């Protein structure tokens, strides 16, 4: 990976002799390094493995004082019981629907605003942009109460609109894409203008295709934010027909029976975490780039 290269070559340069000779000290160092690597992987992966393992165990094997990592016997029973406990199909659909539509909408709205900020010159542009930046400073807990009240006033309580619409207007998304658009060369646009194209054509045909990496980064963070959201959906979408996975999962672990039915709770966790882990594994590059370039958290 690009990230590591610079310093690694620096370190190799620092100690060129060591790079070619195997001596006891070097063997000890390598052993310690690989032991640390394995330890780190175990620490990071074991809790997830334990979640999966617990979800695949029959009820009577959960409360055992000698933990077994590989379930024996192995059963999908807890997933069937999870589906009875929470409306699993509906909840999973809700989460997926909200995350996909919300992400697509947020990218379009943010990209359009970013285009107005980055590619069109107009009086008052910087002032309006400062307003966007200022809203990013406000902690989400300040927003939760008035947004909850607003959603009620709009009659949107327990609707998809409540889950999707407020998230479309992301100052952060606008900021991220504006930075990306500012870096694009102007030549293509000017050529297109000469050929009689308007802003609409330029936006869709030139700017968006050129800014794909930034949009991928925003897509990942937006999807992750919507898929993982808890505090806001908890209060605007409590009814089962619009409930999302994190909220359903949290209700599952709070009940009195949750103290014993850890296999069902863990099955819920698997369902809630698997899609985002898969997205991450396939789009790792954009995650890493997003964090490094802007230092943001999903």
């Amino acid at each position, binding site marked *: 990976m690009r990230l590591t290269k610079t310093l690694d070559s*620096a370190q190799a340069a620092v100690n060129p002799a060591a790079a070619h000779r195997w001596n006891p000290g070097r063997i000890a160092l390598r052993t310690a390094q690989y032991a640390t690597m394995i330890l780190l992987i175990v620490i990071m992966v074991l809790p997830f493995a334990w979640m999966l393992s617990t979800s695949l165990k029959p009820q009577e094997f959960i409360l055992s004082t000698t933990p077994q990592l590989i379930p024996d016997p192995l059963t999908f029973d807890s997933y069937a019981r999870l589906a009875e406990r929470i409306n699993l199909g509906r909840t999973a659909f809700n989460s997926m629907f909200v995350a996909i539509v919300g992400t697509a909408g947020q990218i379009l*709205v943010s990209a359009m*605003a970013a285009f*107005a900020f980055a590619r069109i010159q107009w009086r008052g542009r910087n002032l309006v942009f400062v307003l966007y930046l200022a809203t990013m400073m406000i902690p989400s807990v300040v*927003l939760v109460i008035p947004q909850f009240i607003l959603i009620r006033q709009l009659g949107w309580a327990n609707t998809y609109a409540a889950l999707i619409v407020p998230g479309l207007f992301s100052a952060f998304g606008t900021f991220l894409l504006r930075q990306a658009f500012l870096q694009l060369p102007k030549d293509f646009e000017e050529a297109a*203008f000469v050929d009689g194209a308007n802003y609409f054509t330029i936006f869709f045909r030139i700017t968006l295709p050129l800014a794909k990496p930034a949009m991928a980064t925003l897509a990942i963070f937006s999807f992750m934010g919507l898929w993982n959201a808890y505090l806001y959906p908890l209060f605007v979408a409590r009814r089962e027909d619009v409930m999302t996975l994190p909220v359903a999962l949290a209700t599952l672990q709070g009940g009195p029976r949750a103290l014993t039915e850890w296999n069902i709770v863990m099955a819920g966790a698997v369902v809630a975490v698997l899609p985002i882990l898969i997205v*991450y594994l396939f789009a790792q590059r954009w995650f*890493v780039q997003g964090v490094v370039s802007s230092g943001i958290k999903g």
Partner: protein
Amino acid sequence: MAGLHGWNKWKWVLFFLLPSLAGLCLFIVYPIVSSFWLAFNEWNLLRPPEFVGLANFEELLNDSAFWNAVRYTLTFISIYIPTVFVLGLALALFLNQKLRGMVIVRTATFLPVVASWVVVSIIWKWIFNPQYGLVNYGLAQLGITGPAWLFEPATAVWALVITSVWKDVGYIALLYLGGLQAISESYYEAARIDGANRWQMLRRITVPLLTPTMFFVAITLLINYFQIFEQVWLMPMRDSAADRQVEVIVTEVVKNAFSYNRMGYASAMSWVLFALIFVITFIQLRLQKRWVYYEAD
């Protein structure tokens, strides 16, 4: 851009900006303003709001539940932030080594970052189960009787810190890696010519040049963790002593708003939190001159 003036240009500005700006005003700016106004009102959602001046803020000063929440927030932050700050740096330095298989380690350390707090909370709640959890099983193998973790306030704080460090350390390490990448190789080459060893290079080159990243990390951590919520809301065992006592500022805001229907009081509390974050960030910005080193200066 060339060729467009007057109304023709404004038409396009409005076309691109209006959806975002109108939505931002309705769903972000208006709620901020109305929340600020609510902080000076008493409102239970049933009767119309009643203006009470500074009464909410006065009540806050004498609210022992609020001060308990402030105390737990600060306790948590004072243990968690130094831990993740140092471990994140150590992890970044380790990940920055060129070794076969390091990509796998990096992927693994970022898995908890992308998982939701709800999922992470319930996984660790199970792991910290006093009777059947992995942690106490491990301790038992060492001959130690593990504590009741998420049942008792004192141990619950540690369980919350451990879980939070596990979830965030990969994210913090990645921020540091970005900073490490920006350090020019030439410094290390010069140091090698002067006969510096690895520790000296770390101490005299890497750390000073990394201070801007450290500063950013410190600010990010403080802003995020004054707002700590999910793990505290979800992890303590229901009806245990930990459940009753371990509260942080945001859980107190949420309880006042949505359990007691005290919208005005909860709003006042959320603005006090904002003020706290603002002041702490401001102090950090002032203090940065003392320890942050900018190469360009």
